[in-house]
């Protein structure tokens, strides 16, 4: 079904009724007309009232499509010249039919083509052609909207929508109602009742019904029955354009004959619900009996539906919707309330606020300018970052803790000292700064670092160890296998390192002494026994760990003749020089000069000091040592705080020179015997023996400086060494240039044993481990080792150690099976004793007895076991 707007222009408004009649005749239905027109059509009022007067603006607006065509001004002027009638007409295939029905724009052409068309009949010329209509659905929609803003042209519901709506809203209600009716099976026929009520619903005029009502009626109608436009035309009259009454007949309706239909039934409508039971009885507790309950519900809701359609273009759409929803009347279907409901709706419509002028209304709104958004941001400078990583070990933690502890202790100390005057504090700070500066300076220079120097020494030793690896291995592990063979009465000496100080090839080794504490440290004295080749002397202190270079070197003015390490203070060395002076060095002090030196004034010897020997501290705990010189004196030197005090112990006189004792001073001087060597008794402190240049040996005491305790037969030539046995304290050895070594009992003036070594014996030494073992060196360059327990007459080892050189000194190491021999070429050789050379008794207690036995045997005395 299509709709369009048809306007009866001012020139033919007088003939509007005629035109409407023609429209209806042609099958057009008038859906809506301007309200006045509607009323006019009903009431047949005067013409002025049924029209709408357009203003110029509205007219311009209405004809805006033709604005650019010629004659637009005249058109507008014409259309506002009088009231117009506007209506919405409806017909099937309207847009196909209407051009022919209304006719072309020009009535003159219309008259020639179709003399029956409206414009041909009513129009005068092209401008005043009498009728305006919308020619296509789009224009129609716009123009209908112009005149009827609250008209709703709803699109035809599609089949699906209709079905959905019926299934959801209509069928359930219908089904319920119908089934209820079927169940009730009332005496009077109900079909009629349903049909009547349905007819009543449909009869409600569409313009008066609320939108949802018209919809429901509309859809019902469009579904339930075919269009009956013919009937409407036949009915005629003012009400004919209204939808015709249609009787709905259910399929199973009773068929009544004419007579039955004409039969009249008087029915009175009342408010009682015919289906409500009237006999409900309830137990009344008050009266203790069942009573019929008087109040019955007589209202039945057949259909209830909240509408969703509202007039378009109304003000306050939102409010309207609310109001519409709230006030949407329920489809109350009660036999008596129908009329009231209709009236109420009319009232509601009229009471709705003041209606606005649809055509002359403008709405104004003002909006203040919104401040534009402004973005403001500030970047602060990012805090500085630094990546820091560190490994933490257990020891770093330990160090940190110990440092912290130290600091705390320091702080505690300072706190206890805290109340110090401010004046000194600044001074202290300065001191600190100065000391720190000097420290820093000291640390800056690598060669001042003491630790580095120690490291240097260590490194040098290690390098030497690598260099002399085989010797080190021999020293530690090599034992001569041949000792196990044969009679086990001979041994060998294995040469190990050679020590030589490059600078002094021409010097002779004049003294050898092991350090009593460090098994690897020994001192070598360099000088010369040759009167014509004297020069400066030297003390070199070597270690076995570094054969290539001495640890300490001290240069002396004249040749060194003797030296001795202090047994209790291993850093103290006493030195005797060729010129008769004695020196004391302390190797711990980092100085090259001696800490004590004898002076000419202070009782210096006048001849070479052949031997020095430390003694036990005196009563005042002062260190002291003895020296013997060929000037005939034995002197005790005491180390006081800053001077060397000398005491002459004894002057060596010729035993038989009685005139010397009583003679003049000069004679006395010459009569003194030149002391060459001495040794102290190991037990009796004051006893000592002295060997002289003349070959005599005297036993003396520190307490008697006037005479000898005993005079031994001695040697033919100078006595170079006397040595007490370390185990059997009464025996001593003497070595002499007369090729012999003699063993003495110090209570006997005759030697107990004599050994001829075929060469000038430079030195002899007892072994520290056995009472019967001693070693001697000769000028032939040989080393002889005797073990009297094994062989009383011959050495168990006779070995050439150096060639073309005289051996001058020998010394046993106190801890290791090592001996040192020095020669007159300035070389010191270390030798390892083979196992046969170092046999000892099972216990040290047996050692003295062993020697005793040997000597008794030699003397021809019986053995004491």
């Amino acid at each position, binding site marked *: 079904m299509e709709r369009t707007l048809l306007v009866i222009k001012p020139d033919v408004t007088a003939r509007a009724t005629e035109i409407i009649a023609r429209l209806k005749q042609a099958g057009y239905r008038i859906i809506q007309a301007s309200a006045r027109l509607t009323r006019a059509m009903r009431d047949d009022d005067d013409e002025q009232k049924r029209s709408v007067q357009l203003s110029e603006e509205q007219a311009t607006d209405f004809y805006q499509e033709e604005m650019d065509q010629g004659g637009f001004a005249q058109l507008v002027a014409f259309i506002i010249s009088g009231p117009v009638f506007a209506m919405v007409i409806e017909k099937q295939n309207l847009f196909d039919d209407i051009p022919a029905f209304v006719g072309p724009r020009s009535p003159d052409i219309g008259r020639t083509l179709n003399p029956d068309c409206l414009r041909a009949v009513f129009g005068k010329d092209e401008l005043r052609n009498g009728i305006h209509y919308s020619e296509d659905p789009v224009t129609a929609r716009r123009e209908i909207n112009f005149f009827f803003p609250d008209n709703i042209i709803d699109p035809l519901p599609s089949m699906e929508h209709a079905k959905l709506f019926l299934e959801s809203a209509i069928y359930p209600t219908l089904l319920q109602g119908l089934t209820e009716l079927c169940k009730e099976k009332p005496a009077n026929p109900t079909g009629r009742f349903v049909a009547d009520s349905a007819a009543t619903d449909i009869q409600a005029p569409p313009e008066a019904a609320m939108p949802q009502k018209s919809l429901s009626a509309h859809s019902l109608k469009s579904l339930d029955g075919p269009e009956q436009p013919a009937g409407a035309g036949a009915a005629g009259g003012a009400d004919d354009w209204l939808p015709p009454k249609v009787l709905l007949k259910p399929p199973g309706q009773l068929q009544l004959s004419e007579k039955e239909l004409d039969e009249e039934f008087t029915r009175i409508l009342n408010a009682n619900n015919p289906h409500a039971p009237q006999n409900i009885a309830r137990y009344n507790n008050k009266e203790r009996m069942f009573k019929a309950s008087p109040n019955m519900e007589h209202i039945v809701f057949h259909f209830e539906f909240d509408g969703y359609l509202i007039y378009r273009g109304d003000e306050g759409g939102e409010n309207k919707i609310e109001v519409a929803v709230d006030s949407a009347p329920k489809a109350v279907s009660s036999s008596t309330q129908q009329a009231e409901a209709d009236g109420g709706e009319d009232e509601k419509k009229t009471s709705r606020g003041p209606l606005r002028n649809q055509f002359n209304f403008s709405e104004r709104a003002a909006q203040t300018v919104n401040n534009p958004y402004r973005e403001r941001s500030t970047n602060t400078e990012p805090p500085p970052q630094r990546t820091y990583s560190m490994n933490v070990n257990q020891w770093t933690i330990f160090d940190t803790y110990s440092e912290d502890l130290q600091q705390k202790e320091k702080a505690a100390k300072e706190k206890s000292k805290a109340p110090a005057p401010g004046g000194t504090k600044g001074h202290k700070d300065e001191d600190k700064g100065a000391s720190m500066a000097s420290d820093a300076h000291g640390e800056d220079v690598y060669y001042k*670092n003491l630790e*580095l120097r120690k490291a240097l020494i260590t490194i040098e030793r290690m390098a030497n160890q690598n260099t002399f690896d085989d010797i080190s291995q021999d020293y530690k592990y090599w034992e001569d296998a041949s000792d196990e063979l044969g009679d086990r009465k001979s041994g060998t000496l294995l040469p190990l390192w050679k020590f030589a100080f490059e600078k002094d090839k021409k010097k002779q080794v004049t003294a050898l002494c092991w350090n009593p504490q460090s098994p690897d440290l020994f001192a070598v004295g360099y000088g010369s026994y040759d009167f014509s080749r004297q020069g400066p002397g030297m003390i070199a202190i070597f270690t076995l760990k570094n054969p290539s270079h001495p640890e300490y070197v001290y240069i002396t003015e004249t040749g060194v003749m003797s030296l001795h390490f202090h047994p209790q203070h291993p850093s103290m060395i006493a030195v005797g020089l060729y010129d008769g002076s004695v020196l004391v060095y302390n190797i711990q002090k980092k100085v090259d000069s001696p800490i004590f030196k004898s002076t000419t004034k202070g009782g210096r010897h006048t001849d070479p000091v052949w031997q020095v020997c430390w003694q036990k501290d005196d009563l005042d705990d002062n260190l002291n040592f003895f020296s013997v010189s060929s000037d005939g004196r034995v002197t005790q030197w005491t180390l006081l705080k800053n001077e060397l005090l000398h005491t002459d112990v004894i002057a060596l006189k010729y035993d038989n020179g009685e005139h010397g004792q009583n003679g003049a001073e000069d004679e006395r001087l010459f009569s003194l015997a030149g002391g060459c060597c001495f040794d102290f008794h190991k037990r009796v402190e004051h006893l000592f023996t002295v060997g002289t240049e003349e070959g005599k040996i005297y036993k003396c005491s520190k307490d008697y400086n006037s005479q000898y305790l005993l005079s031994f037969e001695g040697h033919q030539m100078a006595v170079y060494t006397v040595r007490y046995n370390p185990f059997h304290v009464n025996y001593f050895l003497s070595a002499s240039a007369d090729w012999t070594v003699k063993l003495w009992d110090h209570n006997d003036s005759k030697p107990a044993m004599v050994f001829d070594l075929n060469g000038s014996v430079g030195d002899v030494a007892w072994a520290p481990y056995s009472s019967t073992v001693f070693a001697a060196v000769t000028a032939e360059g040989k080393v002889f080792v005797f073990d009297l327990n094994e062989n009383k007459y011959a050495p168990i080892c006779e070995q050439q150690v150096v060639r073309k050189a005289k051996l001058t000194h020998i010394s046993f190491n106190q801890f290791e099976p090592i001996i040192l021999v020095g020669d007159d070429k300035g070389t010191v050789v270390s030798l390892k004793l083979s196992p046969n050379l170092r046999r000892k008794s099972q216990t040290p207690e047996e050692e003295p007895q062993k020697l005793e036995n040997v000597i008794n045997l030699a003397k021809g005395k019986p053995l004491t076991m």
Partner: protein
Amino acid sequence: MTKDYNDVETALARIQAHKGVQGIVIATHEGSVIRSTLDNIQTPQISTLVTQLASRGKSVVRDLDPEDELTFLRIRSKKHEIMVAETKQYLLIVIQNPHEL
């Protein structure tokens, strides 16, 4: 001062003169060289590598017993023996070839 210097220098010369000794490097624990008798190619190599090893070795010793201290490190290889003496401030490194005897 000159005496100290001479002492150290003579000691260095002595070690250098030893059989098989190829070079001596005195370096700090950080690896910067203070004194070296090696050439310019070997010195930085030795100083960086050996100081790393020494510090690792020091860590090992200290971790085993925090009161202990590494004093000496010897590495014997087919060709060389690298000897490292540790002091608080310096490392004394000597490269020796013990087979060159």
